[in-house]
């Protein structure tokens, strides 16, 4: 597994952790789901950031040479393709949010809806990257 694939896995796990940590309470009955709980989001984002940095440092310590090497042409191509894929997902998600917003404008303007779509598009992008690396 290349250094960049390991990094993509770390990113994927971190993002999924962030999604579950933040959105889990919204699934519980009785939760109104309209509040963008900034304190919870900031704690989760900080935890994910710190854990991600530590995990990447551990991976880099085991493969110091690979960490210093710039991405080669295939890795750059995979990164570009995954960005494009991620953007396409995000664009469809925004369209969906707009569509849903016609009947429920509050939903479109709900920060949590947009945050969820943004995170999902990121996860899909990283997932696409992993699939390409493993092909």
């Amino acid at each position, binding site marked *: 597994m*290349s250094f960049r694939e390991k990094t993509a896995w770390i990113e994927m796990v971190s993002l999924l952790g962030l999604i579950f940590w933040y959105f889990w309470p919204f699934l519980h009955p009785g939760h109104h789901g309209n509040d963008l709980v900034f304190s919870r989001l900031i704690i989760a984002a900080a935890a994910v950031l710190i854990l991600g940095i530590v995990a990447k440092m551990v991976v880099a310590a085991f493969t110091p040479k690979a960490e210093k090497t710039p991405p080669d042409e*295939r890795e750059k191509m995979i990164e570009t393709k995954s960005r494009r894929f991620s953007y396409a997902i995000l664009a469809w998600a925004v369209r969906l949010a707009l569509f849903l917003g016609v009947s429920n404008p509050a939903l479109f303007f709900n920060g949590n809806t947009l945050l969820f779509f943004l995170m999902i598009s990121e996860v899909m992008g990283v997932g696409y990257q992993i699939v390409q*690396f493993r092909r």
Partner: protein
Amino acid sequence: MGKISNEIRRLRFEHGEMTQQQLAEKIQVTRQTINAIEQGKYSPSLEAAFRIAAVFGQPLESVFHYSQDE
């Protein structure tokens, strides 16, 4: 779409059983990229293809072959 095949695996073995890692270091890509090129899963840039051919001291057309689908 056509198909690009190559002789990299054979050439590596003919050049002192060169490993994928050694070839990767010579042309400044990752071992995974060499593996993907060898298996035909990734078509290298023209520059990388020339660099691979130069490592083996062969012309480009001896290392890479292009066949067009009917």
